[in-house]
């Protein structure tokens, strides 16, 4: 299948996993490679994504089951008419059932496939059994109709339920690739929040990484820069799951899979 466009979606039920955090690195990576993108923010409580990228991201109210279907119908109609090669969707917590229901009832996966659009699901292993069961259901529902990126976030979860489990093996079999989020100090994160408060608007991580913009102290901006670099290397390695076929950088063909992760200095010894 020649993929002409990509839709990135993180349809996971649990909150506080680092979904919006990860998106900041991903969109910065897209900008770095000059890949045009736009996005949708389905987190109607925080709207973090839209506030940080007001020119590129549109906000939606998911609401209840019926309202969410209407919102997602509007969203996917817009996305399918759009020409940007990548569309990034940030969802709120507890929305996985709404999203899967809408995907199924609106036949989104089949219609996207007809138009050369492929979805990539970003899934975050947690230590919560219910959340991980939902992840399994997502794989069961979508199968090989979408691509999967497993996002490990050691700051939020050890991933003991997932690592080495039959579920992880199934994801590998279905072509999933893994990345690991860097752990950023609470000091830098708090300073970023304070900078947003002072600026009276959301600040993207890309903006925060520039010390000359003086949103953050040099030392703290440096930590963001380090995290960016760490994530960019990983995105380069899984570019074939993030981009349309024509835009995939050559080197990303040789990508790591879930089982062969690069060293992660933020983990303890003997942790994968």
């Amino acid at each position, binding site marked *: 299948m020649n993929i002409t466009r990509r839709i990135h979606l993180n349809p996971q039920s649990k909150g506080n996993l680092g979904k919006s955090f990860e998106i900041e690195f991903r969109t910065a990576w897209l900008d770095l490679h000059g890949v045009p993108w736009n996005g949708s923010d389905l987190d109607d409580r925080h709207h973090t994504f839209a506030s940080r990228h007001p020119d590129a991201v549109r906000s939606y109210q998911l609401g209840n089951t019926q309202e969410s279907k209407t919102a997602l119908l509007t969203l996917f109609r817009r996305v399918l008419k759009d020409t940007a090669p990548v569309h990034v969707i940030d969802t709120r917590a507890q929305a996985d059932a709404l999203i899967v229901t809408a995907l199924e009832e609106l036949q989104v996966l089949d219609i996207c496939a007809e138009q050369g659009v492929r979805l990539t699901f970003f899934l975050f292993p947690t230590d919560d059994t219910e959340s991980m069961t939902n992840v*399994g259901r997502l*794989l069961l529902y979508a*199968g090989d109709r979408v691509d999967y990126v497993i996002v490990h976030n050691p700051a939020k979860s050890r991933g003991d339920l997932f690592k080495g489990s039959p579920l992880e093996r199934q994801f590998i079999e279905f072509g999933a690739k893994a990345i690991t989020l860097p752990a950023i100090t609470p000091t830098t994160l708090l300073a970023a929040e304070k900078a947003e408060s002072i600026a009276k608007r959301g600040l993207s991580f890309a903006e925060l990484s520039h010390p000359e913009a003086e949103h953050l102290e040099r030392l703290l901006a440096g930590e963001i820069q380090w995290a960016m670099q760490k994530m960019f290397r990983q995105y380069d390695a899984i570019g074939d799951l993030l981009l349309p076929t024509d835009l995939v950088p050559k080197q990303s063909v040789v990508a790591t899979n879930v089982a062969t992760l690069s060293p992660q200095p933020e983990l303890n010894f003997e942790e994968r």
Partner: protein
Amino acid sequence: MNDEPTTQLVRTGGGRAYHSRLEPFVDFIREQRQRRQTWKEIAESLRSEKGCSVTLQGVHQFYRRFVLRSRKPHWETQPPLNPETADRKSVLASTPQERPFRRPAADDLSLNNPLIV
């Protein structure tokens, strides 16, 4: 004995519709049955009151067929089709097509058991 070779009858359909001569008396027969009359008594009533001579078996078999037939819709009892709707070609509804795709077996999606060290 008929020595002539038998000829194969060709079913052509159509022809004049058959009607039992008891059909005009259906209501009469029903009324009699509801009064707990026997088939023999009904046959006599038909002959004496309606001038329709028939055996008790004839009445019984006719009425049994009538009751069985009335349970199902029958072309003779249906209202005539409106020619406009009869000629209309209906558009059949389209439903989502089954597109095969690969998915894992549900049994293969288990997680690690944290109780096992």
